[in-house]
């Protein structure tokens, strides 16, 4: 058995480092298994990183939210479009898709925010903003 550690990819959205899968190479498009972000793989001298191919676009946040909900088995309700609008407003005013219902604009609150990624939806039935919902 090899002692070599598997290579990891850094996600610039949730800051997670997830395993590189056999067959992935520079330019491959992959989904961050932690936050649902679509990433294009780049090999840098420091290791593998994921770049955001549609950074800051409405398409990016819609795809991220859909992927995240699909991976976790969550659903949306009639607030979905209003919250997407709020996320787009956050990106315009504060530079990225931070939670539109919170005051702070910090990486921890990139949507899906850290408390959501840590299980708030399963615990409370919904995320802080009421964007992601646990299916009943």
């Amino acid at each position: 058995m090899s002692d070599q550690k598997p290579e990891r990819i850094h996600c610039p959205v949730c800051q997670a480092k997830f395993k590189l899968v056999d067959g992935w190479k520079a330019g491959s498009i992959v989904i961050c298994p932690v936050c649902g972000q679509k990433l294009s793989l780049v090999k840098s001298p420091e290791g593998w990183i994921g770049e955001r191919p549609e950074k800051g676009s409405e398409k990016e946040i819609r795809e991220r939210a859909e992927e995240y909900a699909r991976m976790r088995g969550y659903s949306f309700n009639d607030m979905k479009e209003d919250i997407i609008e709020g996320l787009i407003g956050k990106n315009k005013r504060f530079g990225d898709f931070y939670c539109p219902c919170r005051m702070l604009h910090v990486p921890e609150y990139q949507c899906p925010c850290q408390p959501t990624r840590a299980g708030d939806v399963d615990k409370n039935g919904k995320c802080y903003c009421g964007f992601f919902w646990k299916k009943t």
Partner: protein
Amino acid sequence: MAEKPKVYALSTCPYCKRTKRFLDDHKIAYDCIEVDLLDDDKQDKVLDELEKLTGRRSFPVVVVGKEIIVGHDEAKLRKVLKL
């Protein structure tokens, strides 16, 4: 109505928008502070004010006289505003 409601909101918050829309639809005049758009000094002051009022930093907050409504709550708004 005696006192004009004061709304503390975030410019991006969908629930704040619903609260403002509710007041607009009922032709209620109100003052609104979009806290995230204030400069740092004013923002600190308003956030301190909000923490004293509600014990947290959650939006929207509607203040009508001595009544404080945290979150978008149409039933409470109707009751307090006698709609």
